[in-house]
């Protein structure tokens, strides 16, 4: 299959492009900066329709990973990349006669700040989604699903909290906070959180691509199906990086209120750096977020191949290799995937 992967500099885009290529698909990638993947590459912004059209020429299928996943920034920026970018990709796909379109979304498009305990995927709802990122992704998902037709099978995959070696988002943020002594446990640290090891998420996207004609119009949450207390997750990532686990505990309400204040300051001052706490982050850390995976696994004929325990082993090995070689990259504000 001739597949275009957008956002191939992100952890997920890179992983899915690599897997497709290894199994013999003809892969083209499209993003703003060179990926170094050694495949046919088009550089450009998803908000630029002409650039998208040039990249998609001849593709039979699209895996749309590209998104703005930053913690901060104005609504306009999120809207431009996530909503308009998706609209462009969908429009061009229709015109170019693409048959399959796998859109990467996020479980946060369907949920507010409540605890999610074995939750179903639910419908994307921009009015309920919290924060610029989730709201823009909710709109983008609706745009993508609305285009599903007998000619173009659109499948939405919502991976929750992707991580793995080379992750410049979740893992890098946690590690850099831990280094700076700014990593805290919110509440008791017992809230169960679902995460997704990078290879499993990429496998799920490939499965969705293969089964797209049967799944058109569906939105599926993808996780490892192994929720863990948030404190255990943070500790294991930090320990994998060779650091001491965090000791400081902050009550949930304090963290959330503090997060709201920080967001307000960052937004009003136009700061683009990583804030110490946001209300979204406090909610992510202080409430349960785990999902019912039965429907996803039935629909995709997919099971996570890498367990959490194996994932942490690989992460630790990667950190050790990094420590003996080059330094670890910090967080970046480019295109990437986030849950």
């Amino acid at each position, binding site marked *: 299959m001739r597949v275009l992967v957008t956002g191939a500099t992100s952890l997920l885009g890179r992983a899915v492009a690599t897997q497709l290529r290894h199994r013999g698909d003809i892969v083209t990638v499209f993003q703003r900066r060179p990926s170094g993947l050694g495949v046919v590459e088009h550089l450009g912004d998803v908000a630029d329709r002409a650039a998208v059209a040039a990249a998609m020429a001849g593709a039979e299928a699209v895996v749309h990973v590209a998104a703005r996943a930053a913690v901060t920034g104005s609504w306009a920026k999120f809207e431009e990349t996530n909503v308009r970018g998706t609209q462009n990709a969908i429009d061009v796909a229709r015109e170019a006669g693409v048959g399959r379109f796998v859109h990467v979304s996020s479980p946060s498009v369907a949920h507010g700040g409540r605890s999610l305990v*074995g939750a179903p995927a639910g419908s994307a709802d921009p009015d309920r989604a919290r924060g610029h990122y989730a709201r823009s992704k909710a709109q983008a998902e609706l745009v993508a699903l609305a285009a599903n037709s007998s000619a173009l099978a659109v499948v939405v995959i919502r991976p929750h909290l992707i991580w793995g070696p080379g992750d410049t988002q979740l893992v890098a943020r946690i590690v850099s906070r831990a280094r700076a002594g700014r990593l805290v446990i919110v509440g*008791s640290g017992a809230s169960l959180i679902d995460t997704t090891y990078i290879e499993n998420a990429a496998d799920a996207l490939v499965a969705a691509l293969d089964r797209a004609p049967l799944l058109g119009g569906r939105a599926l949450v993808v996780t490892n199906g192994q*929720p*863990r*207390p948030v404190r255990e997750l943070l*500790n294991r990532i930090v320990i994998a990086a060779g650091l001491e686990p965090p000791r400081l505990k902050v009550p949930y309400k304090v963290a959330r209120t503090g997060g709201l204040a920080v967001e307000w300051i960052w937004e009003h001052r136009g700061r683009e750096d990583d804030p110490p706490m946001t209300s979204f982050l406090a909610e992510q850390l202080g409430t349960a977020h785990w999902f019912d*995976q039965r429907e996803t696994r039935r629909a995709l004929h997919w099971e996570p191949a890498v367990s959490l325990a194996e994932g942490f082993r690989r992460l630790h090995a990667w950190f050790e290799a990094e420590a003996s070689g080059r330094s670890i990259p910090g967080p970046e504000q480019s295109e990437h995937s986030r849950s």
Partner: protein
Amino acid sequence: MTAGPTSPATLPPAGLAGLEPQWSRLVKTPGLNGVGRTWHVLDNQVVDATLTLLCVHGNPTWSYLWRDLIALAPSSVRVVAIDQLDMGYSERTGTTRRFEQRIEDLCALTDELDLAGPVVTVGHDWGGPISLGWAERHRSQMAGIVLMNTAVHQPAGSPAPGLIRMIRTRWILEKACVATPTFIRGTMALARPRLDRPIRKAYEAPYRSADRRTAIATFVEDIPLREDHPSRRALDEVAADLDQLAKVPALLLWGPSDPVFSDLYLSDLASRLPGSEIHRFSGSGHLVPEDADVASAVHAWVAQLEHPVAPAAPPSDREPLWAALDRRAANNDVAIVEMGSSGVEASVTFAELDADVRRLAAGLADLGVAKGDRVALLVPPGIDLAASIYACWRMGAVVVVADAGLGARGMGQALASANPAYLIGIPRALAAARTLRWPGVRISTTPLGPARARLLDVRATLDDLRRRGERRPAPPTPTSLDEAAIGFTSGATGPAKGVAYRHHQLQAQRDALVDLYDIRPGDSLVAAFGPFALFGPMMGLPSVVPDMEVTSPGSLTASALAEAVQAVRGTLVFAAPAAMSNIAMTAGEMSPDQAVAMQGVRLLVSAGAPVPAAVLGAVGELMPDAEPHTPYGMTEVLLVADISLNEIEVAGPGNGACVGNPVQGVEVAISALDSEGKATGPLTGDSGVVGEVCIRAAHMREGYDKLWVTQHAASQPAGWHRSGDVGHLDDAGRLWIEGRMQHIVTTSTGPVTPVGIELAVSALPEVAHTAAVGVGPAGTQQLVIVVVPVAGRRFPGLADEHLTDTVRGQVGPADVAAVLTAPSLPVDKRHNSKIDRSRIARWAGRVLAGGRMGRI
């Protein structure tokens, strides 16, 4: 007849919660003198129905009460639920319609509806007698009677409910029923739990203004409290004619927390409809169709009416429960010894016990106790308890054994549900009975002064009965098919359930025990576990209960046990697991003499709950010639399987606790679990199949007392008992118990059972106790392990990464989402050893959803 407001019948407005517009229709009946009446009726209009449910509401509800009955109806069942005239959305006639008129109205309506074929009437409140009046006029059509919280008669010697008498006061009647919606709102407020607002609004919808509420007052006024009331004769006729419906199956569904229709009326109806099935929804009240799932109950009952179960084969002949006593009527060997803190306190020979039982049996009959009457026994194990029980059995009374292990509240619920006619108790129990208003005519075990007797409302003492019995001929003995006893489950989940046994089932129980443990003359019984104390006289063995706090088996010390063994030269020792642990811990306190006495014990049995093999072994060491055993069973089938300590070691570890091979005469089969953790599979004896443990034996319970729904569900297929335990059989035919059905963790990859996991984790040196529970929605639950570390914990919390990894390593393939630590785990009251996993699961669910740690 006074002229009241009139208005035509209408269809209900759209949007009433749970009500489908297509069920509603208006039906016109011709009526007298050409005055037609129009009715609102809910009708699912099934064509070619095999059966019709005719549902009649009371005051002040309307057909809305029966919406679930329509929603859940199978495709072959027609459900017709009427709004009485002047009620709901039926016509406001401007007339006063009395009881008899309402029956005639209903007959006219069913003629118009052309209600042919078999009918089951369903009535609630005042709809009860009206539906019965209809039934008596349509006997040939009657396939069944269902009644809920209603009455046809004021039981003799009881006042009418105070609430009704108060509302009947003229000015309150007008104010509460018509001028204001107080009576409707008051009725809605009786719902437990509270009704959701949309449902309350739907009930009130047809009664929004005073001119639509007139009939609410007339209904209340039509209750014939006095002899000269115009409706009195008609109601008495309905009550009197009930015997004509005696052959019609009946189901009484009852919410006992009803300020008007109390258990008194349930008993009255049950006596008028002999053979009726009863389900008493503990905790539910007057609005039982709202409080409990009566719709499923009715449909399950109706379904089995259409497919009757073949009657069970008659039981084989065994000797009566008192036969061994009879044979020893001239035997002067000691039968029962009572121990106190300073040694033997009292004893009785077989000859004395047999004579006492005969005297008491005659004395009970003289007092008025009739065959089939229930007699509650609130007496600790000992001579009085044994004499009372065997006396009851000899004369056909049914003993109700609510043991103190249920706690005061549990005992109260148990007694309210069993509703004994008599209550024999020690003074302390009689005082509790008075304070907590337990039912039954009081009989005291000990003589009381006149003032105290009056205070405790005591009708007689056991000594009175003995005297009266001397002068009276022996009452006839019951047959083996008569009811003998009501025991109670421990009520770990909800209120204790009454379990009914007939004589032949207890006889089979006795014979199974004798066979299993090869009990023979020369044996003597030391019963440190309540139920087994009763088997001594039944088997003709001397017996003794050691000095211990009955409600706290853990209070039994090794020396108290040894003293009891000495007293009867005991060869058989039965003890509860909690007692076993304490015996092992206090072994050092025994004197050399006592240690020698223990050498005479040939059998040690730990019964009542699972016991750790280590504890069994430790106590076994005190009795070098005894083989430690532990039977597996439950209140419903006391003896299912048995295993010795040696056999436990041979079986080794596995998924669950090995309880041994089924004992002689007991069939064990497994009903396999589906992916949701429900036991839906057909019964199988194949090894390795995990599912609900199902049992069939001559000594199993007859049924549950006034719990038809529970009994029906636990008796599938017919003749079997579904135990509620989950387990499997192995290649050697041994049964392994993996937990309770409601404690199965339903993960997305299939059901996971707790016991095997708990045993594996508890085997870790750093872990004292373990609970394996599920959190999250059924079918996609996560497995969570809660441990009590040997090192102790002051507060609950998350386990550290090291302990978490260690625990996960023990659990095997199932994914453990979290490991929590706690200072202790909650256990049941009666046995002090069954972990309350449901409670732990609720706590873990809160904590892992981001809630506060708090306490379990």
